[in-house]
């Protein structure tokens, strides 16, 4: 992943609209996160690592696909930091690159069953693919 990481940090901050320096590192976002057990980096770490410019591990981590976009961290952060927007901005940094879609159309058929709602398919594609 050849990227100017300093640039990536600015892009992530701009795109998310989040000011990571507002974070007081209380960990409440991670405490309330339903994806905690599946995420290598937790929401408060996303905020901190973006603040300090430690972006590369986030870009490489599967954590960006484990976040459920439930917005619990956004609602419960006492400082209004909105960590989910940082997670989304990092994911976009990855999937907006050429050929970096997380979901490929070819793989779709095997994920389908009789009952799966259209909503699941369109949302997964919106989140994982550009």
């Amino acid at each position, binding site marked *: 992943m050849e990227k100017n990481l300093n640039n990536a940090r600015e892009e992530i901050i701009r795109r998310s609209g989040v000011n990571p320096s507002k974070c007081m590192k209380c960990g409440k976002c991670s405490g309330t996160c339903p994806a905690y057990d599946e995420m290598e980096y937790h929401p408060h770490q996303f905020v901190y690592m973006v603040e300090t410019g430690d972006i590369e591990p986030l870009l490489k981590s599967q954590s960006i696909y484990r976040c459920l976009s439930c917005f619990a961290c956004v*609602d419960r952060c006492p400082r209004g930091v909105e960590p989910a927007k940082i997670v989304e901005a990092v994911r976009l940094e990855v999937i907006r690159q050429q050929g970096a879609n997380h979901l490929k159309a070819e793989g779709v058929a095997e994920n389908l069953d009789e009952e*799966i709602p259209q909503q699941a398919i369109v949302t*997964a594609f919106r989140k994982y693919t550009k």
Partner: protein
Amino acid sequence: MKVTYFPGCTLKNKAKQLDIYGHKCAKALGVELEEIEKWQCCGGAFTTSSDEIATKLSSVRALKEAESKNQPLVSLCSACHNVLKQTNHAIQTNETFRARVNNYMADGEYNGGAKVMHYLELLRDVIGYDAVKEKVVNALNGKKVACYYGCLLLRPSKVMQMDDPENPQIMENLVRALGGEPILFPYKNECCGAYVSFENKDYTAVKSGKICNNATLNGADIILTACPLCKYNLEKCGSDIPVVYFTELLAEAFGIKE
């Protein structure tokens, strides 16, 4: 009374019961859901990134149509409702976003004048639970109902403003009006696992399993939902508690369920 109605892709396919009974119950209550003729899929999720414009235009067109008719924009699906409300909020509060969106709007600008309402809000705020109660012919006889909200109806609460995001009562009060008994349900605003079930069903089964267990533990007969994806995830997690759309329960109480 007429309202502008945005059905969304799932209600025309896998979640037909949500749509059909939504129409029938509205009719029984004297409301016509006027479907947008050329609605386009909302995309299922509002991308929070401020530089994403094109994916939000389908919502903007729907909002614009409702505004031009001077009607509220009503939807049944939690996801459509969430995307429409968040898009409207972004138009109202973010000038740059509004300007960039309007670059695409060849036949006139949209500046955030529509009012977005979930069907549940229509029942509570416009029709009123007293009027709902009057239509009940088959009271639910104390049926124990776990009212499940998940994420999309409530969060981000600053934008959604439907109810208290930590202890909502909008569905509970509807169930009471129908003669049912809403149970204590601490997991009512936990996430079912959402769209991640598309690629990782083991993961979402754990999330949904906890929600179903919590409903069962508290004595629920059924789980009530407004979301096709929540319903799917809750039904796939291995629990056997029935998951029912709120419009189905409404139709049952009104005696118009087939």
